[in-house]
């Protein structure tokens, strides 16, 4: 599958078929659900009509199912808004289907492109020249995942919250967001760190052929290990001075610290609910203590100078 295929009519048909299948499955499942029994006469709430209760459940279930069916079909249809408009209680939700559709399509595209990359690599596995390629880090897959998170998921975690718990919810969302960002940054960083080891494996294959061709294959396995170690060490030294390493190091550190701070904010909020002194409270006390100690030290030093001066004056006199 090529990049163009991702947006092809076949792709859309496949998605629509999947949605339709999902709707049918839910329908079958729904019909297998037992209808809840009516409560006993003495348990009924005063003033309610038992006949209404008995009839309402299947009707409501049916209505709920129809909503779901329409919803799934609407996602699969080219004009979801028109489908949704006929649903009771969904008249204000015209903007929802495109979001779901977009999310599902993006997820599908990510999945297929990663699957495609892996399939391509596995297909090339037997090709010796392609082994090097396969051993290479799949930077594309990592950056695709990173892009996907940034473009498709992160925005849901940064939606402004409303109401009494606005700040708590925002703090919590921020912690989740920073955690994901940290994990992604660390993944990229550790992948880069592993690069010299992968290069070492490839280099060793070439070196082995070279030794065999030259009739100089070492007797001692340790010689091979030492050569490999020297190569990998050299690669690390070069990598650690590269712009790419410094950029990813900075990114990994910054994201780690940001997650740490976001987590701290959530913990501090919880602590304050229980009147437990937070780190910030302690730091304020320690800062004050530090300032007081410095003042005492300065005064001690002034007193020492003053005493020395007074004593010298007394001696002179």
């Amino acid at each position, binding site marked *: 599958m090529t990049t163009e295929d991702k947006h092809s009519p076949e792709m859309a048909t496949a998605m629509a078929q999947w949605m339709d299948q999902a709707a049918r499955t839910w329908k079958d499942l729904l019909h297998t659900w037992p209808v809840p029994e009516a409560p006993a006469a003495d348990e009924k709430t005063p003033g309610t009509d038992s006949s209404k209760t008995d009839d309402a459940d299947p009707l409501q279930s049916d209505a709920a199912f129809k909503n779901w069916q329409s919803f799934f079909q609407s996602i699969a249809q080219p004009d979801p808004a028109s489908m949704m408009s006929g649903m009771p209680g969904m008249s204000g939700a015209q903007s929802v289907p495109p979001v779901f559709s977009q999310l599902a399509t993006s997820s599908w595209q990510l999945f297929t492109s990663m699957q495609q990359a892996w399939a391509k690599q596995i297909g090339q596995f037997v090709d010796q020249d392609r082994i090097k390629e396969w051993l290479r880090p799949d930077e594309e897959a990592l950056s695709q995942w990173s892009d996907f998170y940034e473009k498709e998921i992160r925005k849901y975690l940064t939606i402004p919250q409303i109401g009494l718990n606005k700040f708590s919810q925002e703090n919590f969302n921020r912690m989740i967001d920073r955690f994901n960002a940290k994990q992604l940054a660390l993944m990229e960083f550790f992948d880069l*760190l592993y690069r*010299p080891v992968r290069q070492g494996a490839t280099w060793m294959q070439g070196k082995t052929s070279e030794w*065999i061709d030259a*009739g100089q*294959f070492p007797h001692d*396995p340790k010689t091979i290990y030492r050569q490999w*170690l020297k190569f990998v060490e050299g690669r690390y030294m070069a990598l650690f001075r590269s712009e790419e390493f410094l950029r990813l190091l900075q990114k990994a*550190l910054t994201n780690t610290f940001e997650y740490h701070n976001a987590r701290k904010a959530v913990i501090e909020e919880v602590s304050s609910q229980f009147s437990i002194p937070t780190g910030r409270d302690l730091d304020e006390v320690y800062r004050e203590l530090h300032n007081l100690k410095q003042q005492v030290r300065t005064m001690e030093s002034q007193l020492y100078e003053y005493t020395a001066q007074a004593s010298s004056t007394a001696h002179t006199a």
Partner: protein
Amino acid sequence: METAAIPIDQFLRKLSEDSQRALEVSQKGPQVMLEELDTAISTTPYEVVYTEDRIKLKHYLPPKTAVDQGVNTPLLIVYALINRETMLDLQPNRSVVKSFLNSGVELYLLDWGSPTRKDRYLTIDDHVNGYINTVVDLIREWHGVEQINFMGVCMGGTFGLIYAAQHPEKIKNLITTVTPSNFDTEEGLLHIWLKHVDPDIIVDTYGNVPAYLMNYAFLLLNPARLMFDKYLGFMENFDSKEFVENFLRMERWIFDSPDVPGETFRQFIRDCYQKDLLLQNKMVVGGKPVNLTNIRMPLLNIYAKFDHLVPPGACNTLIHHVGTSDAQDLCLETGHIGIYVSSKTQKEFVPGIVSWLYQRE
């Protein structure tokens, strides 16, 4: 190197020998690990003569068997805030402390202890003009001398330079060992990395800089050797009790590291690693400038040729920036830690310092 395409017979023979050896090690090794092992470090007897907050001043007296080399002025050793001073007394036969004592030098060693959250606001000024100045004054008072000898280790040496520049009247001779002073170099990875790290976000996040974070950084300096080859070497030799004990001592020292007070770290990274203010005489500590030309006492600057943490380029320009003509470099063919613990430098390091001090006694 050989002539056959693949000397498979010889290769397999060697592999088989190695496997045999590995089998022996794997049989004997676990027994060694289960035995009572002597992995104690810092075993030379000392007395704690002063404590303040987290710091301790250790006092070592020369044994009666010491060969007096004629150095009567007490020596204060100030270690870095990173890792611990126990490295100077790592094992009985490789101990800088013991070597000084055996040469008749009366020794004081500053133990910085383990900073807690309350130490996060301590600055370089608090360490230099606070703790160091206090212990220098105490030693002067106890010995009835105007000046003492001062030896700084790594970052402790940088503190020593700042102290000697601001209190030159209290220091008789200054010795800096693997001390970073020139930060305008790209010889070492730390010098490169720290230019790209924002100390503010680290300090604002953690308060004190966690030791584990610095340990990661140190391991990252040479991952192939420090995370892989080192442990492979251990697996090859862990049937030897002596090897295991020494290995564990070193391992214990490496990973028993304290956090670094946040504000000190912030200033050290900003002013030294990122702005290189020290050699330019532009650094300000405690509201006063640090002018290296005030260092008029004799200076011995020792560094290691294969130091990957404080490379020669970070040390070897110092003597041209101080105010004394009696300044001397001594480059030893070892690494950052090897200068104190390698068997080879044991014969050069302390004897060299003692001889230099004796000439200036």
